[in-house]
């Protein structure tokens, strides 16, 4: 019997796992953004001494994981699992980062939703009694994403206003069965929602319906309403997706105006010329493990709904005429256990 399951898509943890430590590393552009003071490490050079962007991204993720573990006063041997993912084909950044870490590893792909996907699964592993400590991580890199999904860096094209800017960075979270919070109390797993948006430079609109579906389901399953939260944050819907969520949620009877924002909107300043805002697995990862976690520790927020959003976009399927499926996974992070 699935006794921890409530409603159609949510689990309520009986012994909520605690976030015991985090670490974030970002690139130079993110390090000039409005959240710069919340990041643990800002790189001066996004190559970080590596020969390629992919190798650099793997190093960024590896170092974030190592630092998060040592921040929690633990070692790699204490970690029962590593749950990690990224945007690149065969999730290479995660594989090559995991190569030297020697932690039992599950590689995940949920595009930009991977941070809360990994935390949902991690929390289930701990509450299920399968692990005492584990680490969840994701990364993305502007330049490795550009060359895989778009154009060479030096190609002189113009980006649309709805286009987003992939965040260079990685965030890692250590979860533990023993800790003093903040705790992960609920996880709502999203379904794939595809409303037929085909434009790869309008990911916000492609993902927004999935975000709305997960939000509505979360409120229905848990009985929470927006006023039970101090902050509701989506992963990387950007300005276009955020506007859609606010408007359509209002139509559904939920006014989120004062408590809802999006990591992609927050991570860059309007002067940084990123158009609709940040995106990528690293976007939700650095905002969650940087800004949100640190502000929760300071007491600014006591209950936050974090919902990383993924546009499960494949250039191949897109060129074959297919639309972009969206997904969103939500987790409740609470300074109290219940």
């Amino acid at each position, binding site marked *: 019997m699935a006794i921890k399951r409530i409603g159609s898509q949510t689990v309520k943890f009986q012994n909520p796992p605690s976030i015991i430590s985090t670490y974030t590393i970002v690139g130079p552009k993110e390090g000039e953004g409005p959240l710069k003071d919340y990041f643990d490490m800002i790189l001066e050079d996004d190559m970080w001494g590596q020969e*390629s962007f992919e190798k650099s991204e793997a190093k960024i993720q590896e170092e974030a994981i190592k630092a998060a573990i040592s921040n929690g006063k633990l070692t790699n041997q204490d970690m029962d699992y590593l749950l990690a993912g990224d945007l690149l084909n065969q999730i290479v950044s995660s594989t090559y980062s995991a190569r030297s870490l020697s932690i039992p590893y599950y590689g995940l792909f949920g595009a930009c939703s991977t941070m809360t996907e990994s935390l949902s699964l991690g929390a289930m592993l701990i509450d299920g009694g399968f692990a005492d400590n584990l680490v969840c991580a994701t990364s993305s890199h502007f330049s490795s994403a550009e060359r895989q999904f778009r154009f060479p860096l*030096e*190609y*002189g*094209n*113009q980006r649309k*206003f*709805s286009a987003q800017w992939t965040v260079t960075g990685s965030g890692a979270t250590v979860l533990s069965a023993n800790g003093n919070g903040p705790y992960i109390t609920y996880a709502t797993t999203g379904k794939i929602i595809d409303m037929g948006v085909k434009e790869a430079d309008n990911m916000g609109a492609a993902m927004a319906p999935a975000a709305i*579906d997960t939000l509505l389901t979360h409120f229905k399953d848990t009985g929470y309403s927006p006023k039970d939260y101090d902050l509701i944050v989506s992963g990387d819907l950007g300005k276009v997706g955020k506007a*859609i969520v606010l408007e359509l949620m209002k139509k559904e009877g939920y006014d989120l105006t004062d408590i809802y924002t999006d990591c992609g909107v927050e991570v860059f300043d309007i002067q940084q010329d990123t158009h609709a805002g940040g995106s990528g697995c690293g976007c939700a990862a650095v905002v969650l493990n940087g800004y949100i976690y640190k502000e929760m520790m300071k007491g600014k927020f006591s209950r936050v709904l974090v919902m990383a959003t993924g546009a499960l976009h494949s250039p191949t399927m897109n060129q074959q005429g297919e639309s972009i499926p969206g997904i969103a996974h939500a987790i409740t992070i609470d300074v109290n256990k219940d």
Partner: protein
Amino acid sequence: MENMNKKDYQKYAEKKIPKPTYLKNIILAFLVGGAICTVGQMVRAWLTKNGLDEKSVASGTAIIMVFIGSFLTGLGVYDKIGKVGGAGAAVPITGFANAIVSPAMEFKTEGLIFGVAAKLFTIAGPVLVYGVGSSIVVGILHLLFTRGR
């Protein structure tokens, strides 16, 4: 979300996208494209002054402009010109050089064969295929209707 069908949503989402600044883009494309062509004209005049015949002047100008486009791509400047100039930077031959040199630089990490050589024409390839292809079609039409006269 259930009460909204896909078509309605797409129409609705379309309206949420900020409109491109068409007039500004057109003016900038005109200025940037015009500036590149003015440089081309200066090169042409300089080659003519130095006594090259008409055919050599045409090839010489193309060679020099391609070099300038490639060089500025290598310096990391041409993508900035392209960002401002749009089609004004893409259409002249310097833009063609940019479309070839930028993937060559980007994919050198995968080696000279599977990287540089294989990816060289990822952007310019379709332009070449349909450019050369349409010139063959026009050539055949010319032959058919004028019988080679």
